[in-house]
């Protein structure tokens, strides 16, 4: 059964999550593609160095037109948390 066809919001959220994952994969091409998934631990995966924070903040801003602070980025434990944050802010 194709769930997304019955629940359009689910399709939407999946596509936003995919967009986020793809955006991160694009910026961090040196990290194996399969390691960047929804439940990846961002701190473990990227480490919050000043340079990586800049890259993630700018990519989110470019891709989703959402401005995040350093603290907001650092507060996200996983890619899914970052997705939730972007979703909540883009709905405002």
């Amino acid at each position, binding site marked *: 059964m194709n769930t997304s066809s019955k629940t359009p919001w689910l399709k939407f959220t999946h596509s936003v999550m995919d967009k986020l994952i793809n955006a991160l994969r694009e910026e961090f091409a040196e990290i194996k593609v399969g390691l960047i998934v929804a439940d990846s631990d961002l701190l473990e995966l990227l*480490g919050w*160095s*000043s340079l990586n*924070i800049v*890259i993630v903040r*700018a*990519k989110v*801003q*470019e891709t989703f037109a959402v401005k995040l602070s*350093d603290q907001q980025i650092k507060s996200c434990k996983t890619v899914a948390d970052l997705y939730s944050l972007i979703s909540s802010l883009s709905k405002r």
Partner: protein
Amino acid sequence: MIIKTNHFEFEKVNWKNLEELRLLRNTPVIQNYLVNKGEVSEEQQIAWFKKEDTINNHYFIAKKNNGVIGYCLLRHIDYEVSLAEPGTFIATEDLFDSSMAALFMISFMDICRFLFGIKKFYGNVLATNNRALTNYEWFGADKEINKDKNEITLTETESQPYEQSTNKIRKALGTLYDYRFDITIVMDKLVDNELCRNLFLSLANHLPSDIRSKVKVEIEN
């Protein structure tokens, strides 16, 4: 002499602000990252600066919104082969691992690269200085471990020059902060001696035209 760029001010260390540098260097936050540890006394600082070669070694107090955030250095410059050791030290813990810290570092590295014309960077950092090691890793530097001294020497590689390795980060800084290499050098005849003024005028006047257009020189007094 002050170099202004990206809302930072890099104030060249002179007899007037020498004490400011000493106090910064002696803070526990900065001491953590120094290869040569130990507090420096006023007398030691004065003796050091008297002997300091101010053509090949440059120290700057770094300010943002009129507040001191740390200091930077560009030392052991070999103008013949365009080799030197840059360093940025943040004294404000709030700025650690922040995007502002990245803007600060890149802004200063740009000055070293484009104004001083340094073609190859290297640095000696403590093996425990993870922040510096992470940054050098970003720049694709070669590592040489000196186990006796617990230091690591990192050298920029020819295969991944600074412009290339920082391209992505500079683009991102442009998105967040309207970052660009665009500097104003403000010299003060009362503070900066002739040697200093001539050096910076010479550096500015010998820049390639594309970079020269981004460098403004102002002489006060």
